[in-house]
Structures are given as C-alpha cells and as structure tokens.
C-alpha cells in the first residue's frame, strides 16, 4: 500500500469518525429534546432500553388505541399481584369507605388540587374493556370504570414544560431523613401516555362501582398501552414534573430500583 493512499485513507477515516461522533451527539440531543430517552438509560442495559423506548415513541403516536373488547370477553380470572397496603392510614380510610380519602395533584400545574372519591365520580365517567398483561406473562381482560386522566389534568392545568406524571400509592413510604429513599410502589409515565384518551383513573371494575380489594381501591391509574405494572394502585398523590431525577434514585419508578425497566410498552 502506498504512503499517500494510506494518508488519504487516514484523513477520510478521521473525518468520517468525527462526522459520526458529531452525528451521534446531535442525535442524542435531539432524542432528549423530543423525549426519546427513558429515565433508566444508564448502563449497558440502558442501550437496549433507549432503543426500544425511542423507536416505540416514534411509532406509537398519542392516538393509537388499545383494542376495546366486549363484555363477553371479560376474563373470569383477574389475578392480583401484591397485597393492599399495610399502613394504618390506609386501613382507617378503607374502613370509612374512603370518604375521607383525598387525591393530591400538584407539581407543574396551575391549580394544585385535592379530589375526593365522590368528586371524581361526579366527573364524566368512562368504561373501557381492555387487555392487561403482567410482565410475568399472564394476562386478563377486564372492564375499568373511571375518569380519564386527561380530564383531571385539564382541571389542574398542566404547565407546558411538564414531562412526566408521577404516581404514588398508599404503600409508598418516604424516609424521614433521606428523601431519595422511597420504599414501596411509585411509578411515572410520560405525557404521551398521560394525555392518551384511554388512560383512566379507575375507581370501578367489571360493572362494580368500587375496585375489589387487591385491585387498587380507592383509585388506580390504568395505562392500557403498557404492562400492568405501570398501572399504579391505591393512589394517594399524583405530581407533575419535568424530570424524575430528584425522585428516589432518579430512574422514574420504584420498580426500576428493584430491577425492572421503566418503559413497559415492551
């Protein structure tokens, strides 16, 4: 191989590498800007996770609908994962039929609010019969009755820079000393799923006006385009934020801290 040729190759190679790196940088910043990077993007597994989330966010628009089934499709078996919260507050509220329960909605909203169960039931209610799969592999079809999340978000007035809706259940415990230490179930979804017409704050199931024990009474979210684990149960607090970095370990869900990926549209 002659010298000038290899030098030319070296230069073109170097330019190509620089262009490639520059391209990667531009792609990364564009991906971040358009919300294509999940909170758990770190580490070697983060590469696959980011690919999945980014490609699905590009393919799955805000308007693609989960299949709606008919009442005859409703599964006879609707298994429950996990037990109702053990804490005293929850037990007291449950024994009073959740009459004293309030849902706090705050964060990046114009009008932080508290909602009672009766108040939520007076809002326009919807019934959806859709399929829910657990990431363990089992699945069932059920009817969910509730108010669309978008309706509640409209009431509180979401600020334009909000990027995530974070859900905390009654089984969430905050450490008194270290606020980064959160025990229990909490999760977050992006605005694409939050504004989705089928995303429901459900207070009833399968024709019943209340959620059965184990299915998340008094209120749970239902995110039909993701695995069941994203549909946080026993809700007490919803907050909107532009970043989940300051919540827990910053990975967007308690489940991620236990080894499960944040995005569950799989």
């Amino acid at each position, binding site marked *: 191989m002659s010298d000038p040729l290899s030098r030319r190759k070296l230069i073109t190679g170097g330019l190509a590498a620089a262009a490639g790196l520059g391209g990667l940088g531009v792609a990364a910043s564009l991906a971040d800007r358009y919300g294509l990077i999940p909170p758990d993007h770190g580490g070697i597994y983060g590469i696959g996770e980011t690919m*999945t989330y980014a490609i699905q966010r590009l393919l*799955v628009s805000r308007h693609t609908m989960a299949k709606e089934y008919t009442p005859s499709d409703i*599964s006879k078996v609707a298994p429950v994962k996990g037990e109702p919260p053990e804490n005293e507050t929850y037990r007291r509220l449950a024994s009073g039929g959740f009459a004293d329960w309030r849902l706090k909605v705050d964060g990046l909203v114009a009008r932080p609010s508290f909602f009672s169960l009766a108040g939520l039931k007076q809002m326009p209610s919807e019934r959806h019969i859709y399929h829910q799969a657990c*990431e363990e592999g089992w699945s069932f079809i059920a009817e969910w009755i509730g108010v669309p999340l978008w309706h509640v978000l409209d009431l509180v007035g979401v600020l334009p820079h909000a990027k995530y809706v974070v859900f905390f259940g009654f089984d969430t415990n905050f450490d008194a000393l270290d606020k980064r230490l959160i025990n229990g179930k909490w999760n977050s979804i992006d605005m694409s799923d939050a504004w989705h017409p089928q995303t429901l704050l459900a207070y009833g199931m399968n024709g019943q006006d209340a959620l059965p024990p184990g299915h998340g009474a008094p209120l749970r979210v239902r995110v039909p385009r993701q695995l069941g684990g994203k549909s946080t149960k026993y809700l007490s607090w919803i907050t909107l934020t532009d970043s989940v970095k300051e919540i827990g370990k910053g990975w967007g869900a308690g489940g991620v801290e236990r080894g499960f*990926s944040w995005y569950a549209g799989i």
Partner: protein
Amino acid sequence: MAQTAYAPGLAVRGTDALDLPRHSAVVRITHWITALTFIGLLISGIAILIAHPRLYWGATGAAGAPSLIDLPIRFMIGHSGWGRYLHFLCAWIAVLTGFVYVGSGVTSRHFRHDLLPAKPDLNLRTMGRIVWDEVRWKRPLEGEALTYNVLQRLAYLTVVFVLFPLIILTGLAMSPALASVVPALREGFGGQQSARTIHFFLSAGLVLFVCIHVAMVWLAGFTSRVRAMITGRIAAGKEVS
C-alpha cells in the same frame, strides 16, 4: 505468510497456502454476533419464562384459567427484571445484525449461490441419503467442505427466512404499545397469549437447530469448521485437526 510455502522443508504440511476461501467476512462476523446474542436471548428468555411457566392460547391466560401446556418447571419470580433488560439488549443487536446479514446476502448473491438448493437435489432420495449418513455418524466427503448439501441449505434458509422473522414478529406482537399501532400483528397470531406460546415453540425450534448444527460441525471436523468460521479459510484436501 505465503512465502513459507515455497521454502523447502517448510512446505510439507503447508496449510495456509493450500487453504481455500470459505466464508466471507460479513458471514463470519454476523455468525458470531448472532451466536453470542442467541445465548443471551436464550438465558434471558428462560429467566422470563420461569416467572410463569404455563402456555395459553388466545388473548388471555393466568393461573386459574385453562392452560394449553403446563411446563414441568417451578414458578420462579424475581428473574424477569434483568431477564427483560438482557432480552431486549440482545434482541436489538441480533435484529440489527440480521439486517446486515440479509442485506449483504442479497446484494452479494450469497443466498442465491450458496444457500438456494439446486432443483435436482430437491428429492427425497438425496435428502434421505444425507440423513442416513448423518445418523450413521459418517463423516462428509472432503469436497463437501466447500459447499452445503441440500438439507443444510434448507435448514439455513428456514432459520433465516422463517424462524427468525416469526420469532421477531411474535415478540413484537406481545407488546401492548405496538399492538395499538398494528392490531393485526397481535390478532394475526391469535392474541397475546397465542403469540407468547408460538414464540416459545419457535425458540425451541431454534434450540433444536443449534443442537443439530453443532453436532454436524462436530461430525465434519470441529476444529477445521470452527477455524473456517473464524479465519474464513478452510484447508483443502486435508483435515487440519
């Protein structure tokens, strides 16, 4: 390198100079990446499966609902978290590698020249003779080191153009997000649980292929065939091992 073959005394067992090209660089690199990701996909797939080792048919299935097959494995939850992370990482690498392999196989005419069976070979007598030789654990002839027999061709084409595409599609059909974009994907396989069940049997088919593949490589001469898939060259006329 080649000069040593001309040096008197050194050329006796001359290996490199008598080597013939066997596998292209693209085939070799994609082969080993696919092999590694397949191991990753298999391990992580098992980790996900053992969380609920039951198979169903239709849209739904759960403990307490009628199942198709109860695999004789204990329910073991707690491994599907890392299992899913690893499964998706390996799946992305495998799929992107597959695109490179198929793209190059079409443009380089690798599929047409090396894998498309010749019409006269497509008869039961030829195929039966090959199977009979293999069952008797009879080593293939030296001339066969440079080409594939009709059963190898059919097996590779089935893996590349049937099993892999179907296992990718049944995997995607389990995604609730993608099912909302392309409902036909999930419904075409008969529902989410059917897609999961088919995904399982396709992976069993791929495992069977890998077992036979490795056994045949062993029969033909493990060292020389693995060396050919690494260096791209195979010794002509003599067995290196």
